[in-house]
């Protein structure tokens, strides 16, 4: 039995996610779109907290909300004159997109509901110190069976490449 607070939190989060997702893709102003995205990302972070993955939630907020959305906003401001609405997309395209999206949702939803046995699982209790920073750090830098050093390094190389790429691309010619 969940605590009522948790439940309420869940519903709020779910509502925010659903509403803001829809708004993100339907609003005609791109800056608003980015803002709604920010709410969605925050809500997602809340879910991570709920799952007891505090570190992940923090990363989500720091990187996504703090980094990516800011980048988006910068990009939008660099490429758009404020106040000028994007023109409405033509309706056939919208209909087609909606059909595809709904179909995807329908198929996936059907799949979810037809596997109700595990979808109905309860949240298991885990020890409070199961996902401490310490544990995560050990995992990340370990070369054991469950270690993540290799992907970690790969990511770091990727990021380096991205930095260089970004510099090269953004360089004035």
């Amino acid at each position: 039995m969940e605590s009522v607070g948790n439940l309420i939190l869940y519903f709020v989060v779910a509502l925010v996610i659903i509403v803001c997702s829809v708004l993100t893709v339907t609003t005609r102003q791109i800056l608003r779109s980015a803002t709604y995205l920010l709410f969605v990302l925050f809500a997602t972070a809340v879910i991570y907290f709920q799952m007891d993955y505090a570190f992940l939630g923090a990363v989500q907020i720091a990187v996504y909300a703090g980094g990516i959305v800011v980048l988006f906003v910068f990009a939008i401001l660099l490429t758009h004159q404020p106040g000028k609405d994007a023109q409405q997309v033509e309706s056939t395209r919208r209909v087609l997109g909606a059909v595809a999206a709904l179909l995807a949702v329908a198929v996936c939803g059907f799949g979810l509901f037809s596997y109700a046995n595990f979808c109905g699982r309860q949240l298991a209790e885990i020890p409070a110190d199961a996902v401490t920073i310490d544990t995560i750090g050990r995992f990340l830098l370990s070369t054991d069976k469950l270690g993540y050093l290799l992907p970690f390094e790969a990511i770091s190389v990727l990021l380096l490449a991205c930095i260089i790429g970004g510099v090269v691309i953004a360089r004035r010619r």
Partner: protein
Amino acid sequence: MNLTLLMYLVPSLVMFGCGVYGFLTRKNMIAIMISLELMLNSVDINFVVFNRYLFPGQLDGMFFTLFAIGIAAAETALALAIIINVFRVARKVDINQLTKLKF
């Protein structure tokens, strides 16, 4: 009432659907990137909740999400850099109008 796995998957699913819709309908490249982020995010949620519900003793899903966030950040940064560059050259970000490199 309990918070089941399904209850987390539903918003994620909706988020994904919105991402798909946005990706398919938007013409602004930045908006497309935003839709992409939505889809990515919904997948992240799935990873996390599956991990948490089904394999509470392990952390693979979480780490996957962690890396995904890292990669998403890199990818977004690069994509936006490209978009801005394209905008510099072509003065537009509408993918329907960017046909210079098309056959």
